[in-house]
């Protein structure tokens, strides 16, 4: 393993993104899903080293820049979390585009259409620049998002948990927070994670998730999103428990995409309209219902997600050859 790895660290609406800019071996594969499989099989120790304690923590998130796999892509990206590899991540896209413009972490042809190849497909983003040239906010058109299962229910601890299952780059179960006694405040973090993990396990063992036209690698429930009315002017607040019990500090880019698909499917959101959705710490993303489309016969939308990111640091990580924790650790 290389012992010097450089990263650019950002946060998008409170959620960290550690962008690995150098120090990893090349990742072969002619699609981002193939690269994702390669990294999971051959280079997973790097994910553990950089995301887990002591260099990271249970809620760290990462991105690896790769060559683009499409003819017009500016970059490819893999998404890393505490349990493995995501297929699409909105907060990461926002930070990646900010880093590309402010720190030149990858070359872009056109700041109005930054083309990023992700395992879920190509995502096109645009940066809105402030007068001083810094990035004010980033919008991206997400992959087609749709409702897979309008009404589903599982039993957790002897009671029914009703949900809607939708896709916004990854599959989520959307659950009413109030019904289960949550206000979605930071001091509920550990209870939310425990409850979300139980729900996810139940859904995974009773429901076979299938993307109607995508790769089989997309067919899994990534997280649970608890939803309730928002504070102040926001439309709503949601909290996403994903991967191996991570709690998103941001409103979750792929999550709010699924939210927009749900509200559109119910006639509560029209084409061109937007929602402001806040996170468990009160940060916001805007999601707009940009276009209507279909996915394998299911009605779908192309959502546009907007948010902003800030640089938190530039890092050079080393692994001391005497360090007895070369893969880091999590308490579990």
């Amino acid at each position, binding site marked *: 393993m290389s012992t010097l790895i450089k990263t650019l*660290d950002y*946060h998008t609406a*409170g*959620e*960290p993104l550690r962008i690995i800019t150098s120090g990893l071996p090349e990742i072969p594969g002619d699609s981002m899903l193939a690269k994702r499989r390669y990294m999971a099989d051959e280079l997973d120790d790097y994910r553990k080293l950089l995301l887990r*304690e*002591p*260099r*990271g*923590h249970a*809620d*760290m998130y990462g991105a690896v820049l790769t060559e683009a796999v499409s003819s017009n892509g500016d970059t490819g990206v893999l998404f890393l979390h505490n349990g493995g590899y995501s297929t699409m991540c909105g907060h990461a896209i926002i930070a990646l585009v900010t880093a590309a413009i402010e720190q030149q972490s990858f070359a872009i042809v056109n700041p109005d259409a930054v083309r990023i190849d992700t395992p879920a497909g190509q995502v096109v983003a645009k940066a809105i620049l402030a007068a001083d040239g*810094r990035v004010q906010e980033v919008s991206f058109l997400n992959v087609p998002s749709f409702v897979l299962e309008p009404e589903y229910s599982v039993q957790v601890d002897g009671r029914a948990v009703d949900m809607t299952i939708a896709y916004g780059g990854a599959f989520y179960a959307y659950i009413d927070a109030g019904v289960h006694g949550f206000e979605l405040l*930071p*001091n509920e*973090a*550990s209870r939310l994670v*425990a409850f979300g993990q139980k729900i996810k396990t139940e859904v995974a063992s009773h429901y076979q998730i299938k993307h109607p036209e995508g790769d089989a690698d997309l067919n899994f429930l990534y997280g649970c999103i608890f939803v309730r009315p928002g504070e102040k002017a926001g439309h709503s607040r949601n909290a996403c428990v994903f991967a191996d019990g991570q*709690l998103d*500090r941001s409103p979750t880019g792929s999550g709010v995409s699924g939210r927009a698909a749900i509200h559109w499917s119910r006639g509560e959101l029209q084409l061109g309209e937007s929602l402001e959705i806040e996170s*468990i*710490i009160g*940060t916001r993303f805007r999601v707009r219902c940009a276009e209507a489309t279909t996915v394998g016969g299911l009605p779908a939308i192309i959502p546009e997600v907007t948010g902003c990111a*800030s*640089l*938190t*640091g*530039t*890092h*050079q*990580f*080393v*692994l*001391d050859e*005497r*360090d*007895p*924790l070369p893969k880091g*650790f999590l*308490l*579990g």
Partner: protein
Amino acid sequence: MQPNKAHEFDCIDAHTCGNPVRLLVSGGPELQGDSMAAKRQHFLRDFDWIRTALMFEPRGHAMMSGSILYPSTRVDCDIGVLFIETSGCLPMCGHGTIGTVTIAIEQGLATPREPGLLVLETPAGKVEARYQQENGKVKSVRLTNIPSYLHAEGLEVDCPELGGVLRVDVAYGGNFYAIVEPQAIYQDLSELSAGDIIRISPLVRERLNQRYHFVHPQERSINGLSHLLWAGKAIKPDSHARNAVFYGDQAIDRSPCGTGTSARMAQLAARGELKPGDNFVHESYIGSQFTGRVEAATTVGDYKAIIPSIEGWARIYGRNRITVDPQDDPYWQGFLVS
């Protein structure tokens, strides 16, 4: 006092047996005061934003801790150190000292008058750190702790979460520790997940503090049970015992815990299981080890006590330039989710 412009902080990060130590190398504030204790007060009054920016999310996390070096104000110390944590600025921190000494020696940030001995001025006073070097790197650091003693034996506390009554000893090693040893309703540390420890420990601590009073015989301002030490069987063949220390609202020490190991050795010495000169290798929840030693016997008030020392290691893992820009980032002061 708040910044109105972008700040950059150069840090060297290490971990002591799993616990992070972020040493601020440049960007730290100038502090007034004729001692590190006085400088600590100045820091807390005017520069606490630096602590929260570097320790809290998104730049740090719930377990982050660190330090800042200053010239010593005392002629008998080599260098001054200020400790910073998510909870505030501890006057003294064992794992922080081991990490700080390792970084300072390996990176040439401090010059000891006597090779192998770095004398630190901490806000709690003078601390002598003896270190061993190997190929230019620091292999381990040994600290001598304050007199530690067994305060109470066989205290009973309800623990319906484990299905009955727990019996615990309480010992002092810089903090008061309730030591939970294997018994009928708690067979071993391997039975508890990290989530169990975080869920059960604060309840047991609260019940103990409601039922008993824990006051240091020589310093009444040191009172109250703050830590729980769940004792268990060693996993590594060269460890004597394993433990998980719970403290704060929801923290489990990643290291074997210096003050906890001191308290545990005081308990074992009071029982006659350790005597001056004996080593005690203590293993953490994640398997990292400290080597404790009973340096001498002493007394604390009317209690028999020991002077313990703790030897541990730290390894550097990164160099980081942390940026904090109040104009750009609404979370420049950081946040915690708990």
